[in-house]
Each structure stands twice: as structure tokens, then as C-alpha cells.
């Protein structure tokens, strides 16, 4: 498979100027709201240290905590399943649904089920799957994956949503009023909640001590999916485990503040045991996580709580859109997770970054995101996964930089070149940097020449 070309894909996004400007502004606004909330809490940095330490402790003792969670969940009356990969997860879910003769599944947003590509798997087998989060539903109806892990349709404007809804759920064509569109979705979805035989959620956290799991949402759709049908299935990645309830407080205090800049989500829901007369099934999914746990430089990425703060702050993400990454996870966190799934397909993604470190600074669990991006670049270079132009450029730079005489000749030649060469010789496909930018005017004198004239004889 050809590697995803992020730069090429994002050029389409950049062409739609109105979309680009809104996307950039909206996500930066989320970043500012996050800052306001973080600054209002004196212990914010201490909370980040605690969150990181809890996650590191849990991940280094993960097998024990998984066993404790399983034992407690079973004691509570739930069923626990284990899936090595996406396909096994999908098969388990389908088997549970079949055993209950469930033909319709209402579900809340879950990056994990996107990662497993569960929807097409179930639909091919005759199960109707209804996404009930507004953003995720818009993406489902438009046959697109989510472009952001918290706000899945953030790359769309109201006109786009109006067009999708008019085409799929019969809203009034041309009506772009946002409350009207949200109400159209509510009215379309309510009957599914009342009649579906099964509901599904993901989980933000799973607590070993109690065997319960926690879902953080704003729309009320997860609680409807879990509390109306007689069957509740929850898909949970094995890295979501934390030891005790008291640790949960640290994460709940930071999750929505980091994601949306609100002190908490409207609903923080704790599922411990099935309602009387109903069934609760938990599917614990590995899908590459246990392998990543063994990668010395990259296991820290398993601390991620999927808040999306790194995406909102990233200048490359804001100006290229999530779909251009061609992966379930986009933005800075995606760049360090995706290559672990498929190193060739995602070999170009580590270059979709300025390495400015802002992602690392806002991360509530202190993942060293920009350092991991840099590490992935080294691996791509070692594995010969660099694009040809970059490879040649780096080879030439390496040679020139290692020989002072060559370096000096090159620098003075570059100055001359920029002054005298025609535009097409500087702004062409070999210089993608110059596509949206003007190359700065070269200085009149190199630092070396200035030094020789002014300082060397003192």
C-alpha cells in the first residue's frame, strides 16, 4: 500500500478557504477555553504530574489490573470478553447481538469501534448501526470517518450539514439554521432509542477496584443508548484501566477542561452492573496495544485519554484538517499512534509537524508527543521510508555541513542564487516550503565574513 500523502491530501482542505479559516479559528478557540480553565485551577500542573504518574504505574502493572477489573466486573454480574484485534472484536459484538436477535444498535461515539471498523462489519451482516452523537452521525450519514476525536464534524460548516441532512434524514433543503439542524437530528434519532434492541458505548476509563467503567459525554446519547435497550455492550481498549476511584477524580477534573474548556462534561456516567433484567457486556480490546507497550520510546503514548488538546493547539492540524491524515487518529497524537499500526502506510505522517512542542505542553497526562514525533522521523529515515526529495536533500546537507570549505562556498552561492535566479528556479516542486511562503531576502553579508572583518583581529 502506498503511504498516505498528508501534504497532498491537505492541499484539498486548504483550497476551501472559508472552511480552512473557520476550522483554524474554532479549534484555536477551544485551546483558549482550555487555557482559561487550566489557569483557574492552582493545582493544574500538579494534577498533570499525578495523572502521568497514575498512568505510568498502571501501564507497568497492566496485566494485574486487567485481571482485577475482569474479576470485579464478573462479580458485578457483567460479561467480559477479550479481543486480540479489530476483527475479533467485531465478531464478538456480532455474536452477542445475534444471540439477542438484535437488528438495530444505537451507539455513542467510540474511537475504538472506528479503529476496529466495526460499522461496515455489522452492516454487512444485517445489523443497522445508528451513531447517536451529533457530529459522529453527520459523519456517518456523509459516509466519512470522524475528522477529530472529540468534535468529529468540526471540518464541516452549517451549509454542509444542511446538505447532508436534507439528503439523508429529510430536513428542509437549504435550511442552515443550527438549532433547526440539531433538532432535526434529535427527532430523527429518538425513535431509534425507543425501539433498538441493543445499545453500545465506549469508555473513557475503566476502574480495576470496582469493575466499573466511565463514559463522559455531553449530549445524553450514551446514557440513552445504555439505559433504554435491554442489552448494553461497551468496547474498551486495554489501556483505559486505572486502579481506583480516587484516581478517577484526577482525570475527570482534567478531561473536559483539556478537551472543550468546560469544568466537566454534562454527563459523567459510571456503569458498574447491569440493570435488573438486562445484560451488560464488556469487550476488552488489544489491537496492537500490548505490542506498543513493549516499544521503549513509544509506550508513553498509551497514557493518552483522548482529549484532543494536542490537535486543537497544533498549527499543522488546524490548517490541514483531520481527514488529511488518512487514519483513525489524526493530529499530533495520531502521528505517534498510527505508525505503530502500519509503519509503511503512515511513514510520512511524522513530518506533519513543526515540532514546536505545544502538543506536549497542553497534554494533561504529559506525553512527550513532539519528542516521539522526532523519534518516529529517525525510525523512518533508518528504515528508508523517506520521500526521495527529502532523502536526497538530507544526504547533500549532511555532506555540505560536515565540510567547512564546502559549506562556505554553498552559503555564498545561495546568497547569489537568491538574488539572481528567476522565480521558477526557487519556487518549484523541489521546494514545497515555498508554496505558500516567500523565501526571505538573503543578508548582505554572511556572519563569517562580518566576523572576519570586525572581530578576528582583536
Amino acid at each position, binding site marked *: 500500500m502506498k503511504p498516505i500523502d498528508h501534504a497532498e491530501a491537505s492541499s484539498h482542505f486548504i483550497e476551501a478557504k472559508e472552511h480552512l479559516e473557520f476550522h483554524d479559528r474554532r479549534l484555536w478557540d477551544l485551546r483558549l477555553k482550555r487555557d482559561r480553565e487550566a489557569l483557574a485551577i492552582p493545582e493544574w500542573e500538579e494534577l498533570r504530574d499525578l495523572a502521568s504518574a497514575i498512568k505510568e*504505574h498502571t501501564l*507497568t502493572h497492566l496485566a494485574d489490573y486487567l485481571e482485577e477489573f475482569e474479576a470485579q466486573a464478573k462479580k458485578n454480574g457483567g460479561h467480559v470478553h477479550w479481543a486480540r484485534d479489530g476483527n475479533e472484536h467485531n465478531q464478538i459484538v456480532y455474536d452477542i447481538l445475534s444471540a439477542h436477535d438484535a437488528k438495530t444498535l444505537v451507539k455513542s461515539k467510540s474511537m475504538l469501534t472506528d479503529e476496529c471498523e466495526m460499522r461496515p462489519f455489522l452492516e454487512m451482516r444485517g445489523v443497522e448501526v445508528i451513531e447517536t452523537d451529533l457530529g459522529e452521525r453527520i459523519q456517518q450519514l456523509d459516509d466519512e470517518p470522524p475528522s477529530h476525536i472529540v468534535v468529529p464534524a468540526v471540518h464541516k460548516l452549517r451549509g454542509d450539514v444542511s446538505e447532508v441532512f436534507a439528503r439523508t434524514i429529510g430536513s428542509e433543503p437549504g435550511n442552515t439554521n443550527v438549532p433547526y439542524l*440539531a433538532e432535526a437530528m434529535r427527532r430523527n434519532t429518538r425513535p431509534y432509542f425507543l425501539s433498538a434492541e441493543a445499545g453500545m458505548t465506549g469508555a473513557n476509563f475503566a476502574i480495576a477496584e470496582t469493575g466499573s467503567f466511565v463514559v463522559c459525554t*455531553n449530549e445524553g446519547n450514551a446514557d440513552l443508548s445504555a439505559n433504554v435497550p435491554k442489552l448494553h455492550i461497551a468496547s474498551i481498549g486495554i489501556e483505559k484501566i486505572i486502579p481506583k476511584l480516587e484516581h478517577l477524580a484526577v482525570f475527570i*477534573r482534567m478531561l473536559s477542561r483539556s478537551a472543550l474548556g468546560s469544568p466537566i462534561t454534562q454527563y459523567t456516567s459510571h456503569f458498574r452492573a447491569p440493570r435488573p433484567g438486562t445484560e451488560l457486556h464488556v469487550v476488552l480490546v488489544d489491537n496492537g496495544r500490548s505490542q506498543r507497550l513493549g516499544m521503549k520510546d513509544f509506550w508513553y503514548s498509551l497514557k493518552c485519554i483522548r482529549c484532543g488538546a494536542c490537535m486543537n493547539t497544533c498549527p499543522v492540524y488546524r490548517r490541514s484538517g483531520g481527514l488529511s491524515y488518512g487514519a483513525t487518529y489524526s493530529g499530533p497524537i495520531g502521528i505517534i499512534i498510527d505508525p505503530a499500526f502500519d509503519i509503511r502506510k503512515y511513514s510520512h505522517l511524522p513530518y506533519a509537524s513543526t515540532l514546536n512542542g505545544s502538543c506536549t505542553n497542553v497534554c494533561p497526562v504529559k506525553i512527550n508527543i513532539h519528542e516521539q514525533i522526532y523519534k518516529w522521523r529517525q525510525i523512518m529515515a533508518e528504515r528508508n521510508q523517506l520521500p526521495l526529495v527529502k532523502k536526497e536533500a538530507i544526504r547533500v546537507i549532511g555532506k555540505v555541513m560536515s565540510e567547512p570549505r564546502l559549506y562556505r562556498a554553498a552559503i555564498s552561492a545561495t546568497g547569489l542564487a537568491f538574488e539572481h535566479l528567476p522565480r521558477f528556479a526557487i519556487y518549484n516542486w523541489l521546494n514545497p516550503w515555498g508554496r505558500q511562503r516567500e523565501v526571505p531576502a538573503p543578508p548582505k553579508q554572511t556572519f563569517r565574513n562580518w566576523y572576519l572583518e570586525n572581530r578576528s583581529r582583536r
Partner: protein
Amino acid sequence: MTSRDAILAAVRANQPTSTPPIPDIPMFESSRPLLERFQESLISMGGKIAPALDGQSLDTLVQSLFPDAAVICSGTPEVRGTRSLDETAGPATLADVDVGVVRAAFGVAETGSVWLSEEELKVNAIAYLAQHLIVLLDPTRIIGNLHQAYRDARFKIARYAVLVTGPSATADIEGVLIHGAQGVRSLIVALIPL
């Protein structure tokens, strides 16, 4: 080998051998007045505070808040409403409820949240299928922050427990805030001592 054993074996083989200890979590107590902070947080999350009772009955207060409501369904004996909450009926029977009324076990000042479980809700779906929700809360049962909340042993007993903070909301279209996404359109907290 079962998938369970294969996953656990892979995790055991790969989990880093450094063993950082689990940190102690401080309570991070704040000196701000609890009731004031609760109200401020609740309002910032889109919730409202009911006017004082002033001698009228709770049923009268509920009716004055929602004069057009046809179905008022209450999970607390303090409010009669128009229909009693039948714990044995299926959740879908609540689809036509205009106003649900429940009493919260406690509130959290830091976030403006109220704590509800199957004990308070009777039928969990009432908090989501009703068009509007009124939550009674004893003002002396407001605690400071989530660190205190998660020390409450009821989390270990409840099958389902939820921290509800304001009404259901979405900003998924252009960041425009809408109250009444899939759950209740409004949430009013009535500060009524037990």
C-alpha cells in the same frame, strides 16, 4: 490459548519493568463558599436554580415552572406530579414525559454537578427521556470537589451512577451551543432541604 490468556501474556511480556509507585492523591480543598461556587458552576454549564418556595408546595412550584406540561413524572415522594414513576414499566414508556423530578444524593461545588443513581432515578432513563428535568438538592449536601465526591462509598454500591451537570448539550455544528441535544432540554436545581 484463549484470546484472554494471549493478551495477558503479551502484556506481561511487554510491560516495562520500571515500577513507578502509585502516587497519593491530595484532596485539594478550596476555601470558597460551597453554595455560591455550586450555583456559579451550574449556571456556567447551562443549568438553572429554581426560585425559592416561599411557602408554596413543591407541586405548585413545578407547575409554575412548566405551566404547559401535560406529563410530570416524579421519582421522589415530595412531588406528586401527574404520573407516578413505575419502576417495573420499561424505560421506553417514559417517552412522553414533559418534566421529570428527582432528588439528588449530593452536589459538587467545583463543577455544579448533582449525583444520581438508580436509587434516586427509579428508572435511569427518566433523566434523559424527559424533555425537562428538575433536581431537588439539599444545600447542606454540597461537597467541594471531585476528589471528595469519589471518596463516597455509594459509587461502589450503585449499579449506575451519574454526575449530571446542566442539561444535555452539543456544539458539534460550528461550535454553536444547543441545549437539548439528545437528553433533557433544560435542567433546574431546586435547593430544598431534606
